[in-house]
């Protein structure tokens, strides 16, 4: 069993909801990212999605694109991302890390090299936004032997025929996209999502977590009530952007930038 599956099983067994914050590797710099990750764990994160910055993030909204641009200005590359994971793993052996990003950086270094380095560094899962299941077989053939989970998105527009292929090839969890749009968008229709998540439950035993547009305790509670947990990305990246602008990197400033995650944890557990 992968570390990711074991972790989520334990959270569910304790009758809690999974909380997954997303941050961009290298935003504002590699050392601060590692500090932010440890802070997120102490705030109550169960899993961390670590964004691999890309110059052309066409599925993301403006907030995450700006985060990626800040990271790229620091020269962040995949070697930086693997370095951040290794560094985090020096003291944390339990919190699963999912690397999330776009395909071209993997194409540039080669899938084999990517999978080897990701696994060696201590990553647990991979989510490539612009890699649909139909094009993912060659990557899946490399991730399975290394016990890396491949996470795929399910969107409100996903057709029945695609759902089966996605469920069949996914492991770890299913990432349900709450809305039609990009990350950080505004409007969430709880009723429709609830129906879709229930339909997904008929097809898979995998945990289902909801992301896109979760920005506060209210939206987190609403989504957690109908799923196994929530992903919080843009709202956190926005706060990290403010941290960058402030120029401060001390413990208090870092804890301040992740306060939202702590609030959401407390709210989910209440």
């Amino acid at each position, binding site marked *: 069993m992968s570390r990711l599956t074991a972790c989520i099983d334990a959270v569910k067994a304790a009758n809690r909801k999974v909380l997954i914050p997303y941050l961009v590797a290298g935003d504002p710099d590699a050392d601060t990212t590692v500090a932010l990750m440890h802070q997120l764990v102490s705030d109550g994160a169960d899993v961390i999605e670590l964004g691999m910055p*890309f*110059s*052309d*993030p*066409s*599925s993301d*909204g*403006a907030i995450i*694109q700006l985060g990626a*641009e800040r990271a*790229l200005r620091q020269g*962040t*590359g*995949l070697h930086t991302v693997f370095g951040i994971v290794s560094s985090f793993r020096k003291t944390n052996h339990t919190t699963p890390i999912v690397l999330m990003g*776009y*395909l*071209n*950086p*993997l*194409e*540039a*270094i080669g899938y084999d090299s990517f999978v080897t380095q990701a696994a060696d560094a201590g990553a647990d899962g991979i989510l490539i*936004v*612009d*890699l*649909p299941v*139909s*094009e993912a077989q060659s990557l899946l053939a490399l991730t399975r032997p290394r016990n890396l989970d491949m996470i*795929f*998105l*399910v*969107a*409100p*527009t*996903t*057709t029945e025929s*695609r759902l089966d292929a*996605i469920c069949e090839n996914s492991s770890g969890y299913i990432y349900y*996209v709450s809305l*039609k*749009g*990009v990350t950080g*968008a505004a409007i969430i229709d709880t009723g429709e999502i609830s129906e879709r998540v229930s339909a997904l439950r008929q097809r898979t035993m995998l945990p289902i977590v909801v992301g896109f547009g979760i920005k506060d305790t209210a939206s987190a509670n609403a989504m957690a009530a109908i799923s196994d947990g929530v992903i919080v990305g843009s709202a956190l990246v926005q706060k990290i952007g403010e941290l960058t602008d402030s120029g401060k990197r001390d413990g208090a400033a870092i804890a301040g930038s992740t306060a939202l995650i702590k609030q959401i944890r407390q709210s989910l557990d209440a």
Partner: protein
Amino acid sequence: MSALETVVPGAAPGTVPDTIASTGQDQFSGPDVHGHFGQYGGVFVGETLMAAVEELDRVYRKLSKEPSFWQAFDHDMKHYVGRPSPLYYAERLSKQFGGAKIVLKREDLNHTGAHKINNTIGQALLAKYMGKPRIIAETGAGQHGVASATVAARLGLECHVYMGAEDVQRQSANVYRMKLMGANVIPVTSGSRTLKDALNEALRDWATNVDNTYYIIGTVAGPHPYPMLVRDFQAIIGREARAQSLQEYGRLPDALVACVGGGSNAIGLFHPFLRDSDVAIYGVEAGGDGVETGRHAAPLSAGKPGVLHGNRTYVMSDANGQIMETHSVSAGLDYPGVGPEHAWLKDIGRANYVSVTDTEALDAFRMLCRLEGIIPALESAHGLAYACKLAATMRPDQFIVVNLSGRGDKDIHTVAKIDGITV
């Protein structure tokens, strides 16, 4: 009916073009059902867009086999666009080089001044059939934006055009043309503020408004089925050129030359000739300051395979896989990727891809103005510059067909600025 039309093989009004009717017979009838040209092409988009892309593929595969669809297309090509476009022997230009005849396929004479309208007419028919009231488009030089605004106005569709903020500045006349026709032009300020960023923003809009929106991609890139269907609409260029060559010269050309940004005018000219193995094919990329300087927009010449904007193809990216900024005097060629079918044609050796610099393109631009009284688009001037070099190496009894893909009215401010003149 004109003499020209009568000889266009397989393209009598209302018949399915033979390039589409011949299914799955040889290596040139691609892509496969998954949209692959060899290892290139495919579908690489976020899950939210997958259903829309698959629906478009289903609709196009069905409609493209129906003669009535092509009847509507051919009708608009003749009566609205003004096709067929002439094949014109540029005699004075050719004589400068003392070699092969340089013959221009005059796409610059189309309504809206470029080949882009061929594609937007076709895709507008698809949007209408699919019942989408809202269209979006990305544009670089503004030609595709204008062509999209044009068909939207004609069909009464809402139209939003994404354009890099830098391109909005350097192509202000086209911005105004789009606005005159009722389109909403949205300047894109993210990233490098050029065509690739406009494409990102259009993809985001599409994901957000996927239920009521049709995305008219302007080139043979993007996820499958776009590279296939844009090619099929643009292939009218090559079908006409082939028939016109046979009629006027009694044989096929010795070589074809076209500029390649995303590559739609080039694939449109090349595709109907792919099986004619004696016809040499040259795609000309934007060399900018020179490929060796790194400041260029020539992914086939100096890039490597990767994934960008929905397909696998040659891209300009750094060692970390980040997409690099491109440089070209021509906004329409200023793009770090290229259509996947070109990537495949390069690998199998059926087409040759070369580059010319900004300076060479500007020289060709001026030469065509002075010798032939034709102001070409700076994009097309890249093809022309290479054709001039190529002609000099060939015999006078040979001929080259160059796709003069657009007219240069939109570029006069750019050229004047280089000359230090305020227009």
